[in-house]
């Protein structure tokens, strides 16, 4: 029933992806890739405090499609491979770098780092590491917006296929179903959770098979295809926005990097790399631009250079920024200062 609703509304609500939209998405995708490449370089150069760098290579088409489908007033809780979506949702390169390099001017002021960043007051929620835990937080924001009478808002959040095995995932989806919230749950099935293949992670054919059990509308998408991602995410977001309840989008793709930059990912099945899902969404979208004559080779290379310049400038800026200072740091975890304990020394 739900899915027939979705078929109907699909045609009505979502037009084909326009050249403009595609180009806009592509530019974010490209910028995210360039930023990731720089982060990897900084990591190799030992410039990332402490250490982890988690990249989104191969997942940018999906991620950017989420971020670009949202608008001011919406809620977004991205995960570790969502550099592209973050940029599209409104994060700046400087902000991202500040968090990764631990600048005191960054959104978490050095207290938290790398992918753990956001601006909760702007609907951009900073993930905690525990997988699945952000879903119900998005639900809560949406419930609050409903209390306040705000209409037409959407909440989107992302997770890898491994994260779907958490109890938090289940409770969050069930809650969204019961409350019939405008939640768009995006699952990036990149075939591995760290080293663990899907055969050790779940036993259904597609994770979209779980939608029905929660009263979600299911959507599947080829995560390597930017046009398809834009269409399906646009559709899912539009459905949620127009009162059609929660949506589950499951994308097939492959992580084209290590779990983190410390990981050579040698466990990835070479057959997957050579398969359709192993294709690089950046390369595919460049081809798409060229084939459709939406961009020339020269333009593509200019855009890349521009992105690189933007990233390099941001790095130069952020690297000059102060690190947090433990002596001036306010070591208090409470807003209500009078309840702080000195700590028992």
């Amino acid at each position, binding site marked *: 029933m739900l899915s027939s609703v979705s078929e109907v509304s699909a045609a009505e609500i979502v037009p084909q992806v326009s050249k403009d939209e595609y180009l806009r998405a592509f530019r974010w995708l490209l910028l995210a890739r360039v930023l990731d490449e720089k982060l990897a370089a900084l990591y190799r150069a030992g410039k990332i405090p402490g250490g982890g760098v988690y990249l989104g290579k191969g997942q940018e088409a999906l991620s950017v499609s989420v971020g670009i489908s949202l608008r001011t007033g919406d809620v977004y809780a991205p995960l570790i491979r969502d550099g592209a979506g973050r940029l599209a949702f409104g994060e700046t390169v400087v902000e991202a770098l500040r968090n990764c390099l631990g600048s005191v001017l960054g959104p978490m002021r050095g207290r938290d780092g790398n992918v753990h960043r956001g601006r909760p007051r702007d609907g951009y929620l*900073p993930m905690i590491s525990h997988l699945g*835990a952000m879903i119900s937080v998005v639900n809560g924001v949406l419930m609050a917006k409903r209390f306040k009478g705000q209409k037409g808002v959407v909440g989107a959040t992302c997770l890898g296929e491994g994260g779907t095995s958490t*109890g938090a995932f289940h409770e*969050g989806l*069930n809650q969204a179903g019961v409350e019939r919230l405008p939640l768009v749950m995006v699952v990036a099935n990149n075939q591995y959770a760290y080293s663990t293949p899907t055969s050790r992670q779940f036993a259904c054919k597609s994770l979209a098979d779980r939608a029905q059990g929660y009263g979600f509308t299911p959507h599947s998408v080829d995560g390597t295809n930017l046009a398809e991602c834009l269409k399906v995410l646009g559709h899912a977001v539009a459905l949620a926005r127009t009162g059609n309840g929660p949506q589950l989008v499951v994308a097939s793709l492959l992580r084209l990097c290590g779990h983190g930059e410390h990981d050579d990912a040698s466990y990835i099945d070479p057959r997957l790399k050579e398969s359709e899902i192993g294709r690089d969404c950046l390369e595919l979208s460049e081809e798409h631009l060229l084939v459709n004559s939406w961009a020339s080779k020269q333009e593509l290379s200019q855009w890349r250079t521009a992105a690189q310049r933007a990233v390099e400038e941001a790095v130069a800026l952020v690297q000059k920024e102060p690190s947090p200072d433990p002596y001036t740091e306010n070591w208090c975890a409470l807003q209500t200062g009078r309840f702080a304990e000195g700590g*028992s020394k």
Partner: protein
Amino acid sequence: MSITYLEAIREAQARALAEDPRVFIYGQDVGDFGGAFKATKGLAKEFPGRVLDAPISEDAIVGAAVGAAIEGMRPIIEMQFADFSTPGFNQVINQAATLYWRTQVPCPITIRLPSGGTSGSGPFHSQCMEAIYAHYPGLIVMTPATVEDAYSMLLEAVAIDDPVIFCEHKYLYYHLKTDRLPTEAMPAGKARIARPGRDVTIVAYSAMVHEALAAAEELSTEGVEVEVVDLRTVKPLDTDTIIASVARTGRVLVVGEAFPWGGVTAEVVARIATEGFGLLDAPPQRLNAKDTPIPYHPNLWSAHRPTANSILAAVRNLLRL
């Protein structure tokens, strides 16, 4: 009029809902049914759409509360029993408790934990979890021992901009009564001298305050004047009031209903030892529950937790040291 501890909790929630449109209540069976203990009785009808039944999903319940708080609401969460907060533990300590430190966005949620032992409730409906939550930075942990505190501290919990773990004691729900609700109150974070005395201090909280007071009455007939300190809030701890009492008496017994390893009694004794060492005329003493799960059978249960009798014995022993 006579108001129980449980009714005070209901009244505080009614008032919070009435006075602040940002307040809502979310938890299993809290709606039309009024909650497993009836702590939200009638509120769903009185405040339509603001008292919501939740699925049996403690993780998602707490997560949603955090989200709603980010968006400016002030949710009150009822766990059906404190024991069932464990599946929500991760969201409490890693999501709610860290939000402000990480983002400077406050997280004003109140999590009500019906806590503590009652006869026959067994290992999974009797637990005291205050120490577990108090261990984590970013949380305030309240343990009201009186009807007045149940009322005023719950109102304060809802008003505070930080996550509050509100440990209300099930044994006190019906056992404690008062004539009228307070109009003004001691602030949270301050301990209370529940009974003044010059010979020995008992530090207690929640239901144990009443066991301590009963023991104190008994000792009073023997000419021993016990001062009972009711902690009220276990995080932050009001070390000043504790130390001041120890300064007066020189002897202290700290009583808690929780398991013996760690917990409030360890923290309080450690503070007294480090900060009030010179004031002690005898070693500080502790009394906790036994180091086993909480037994079902009333015979075992009454031996498992501290009571007026075991407190009496401990004080007598302390006076001989």
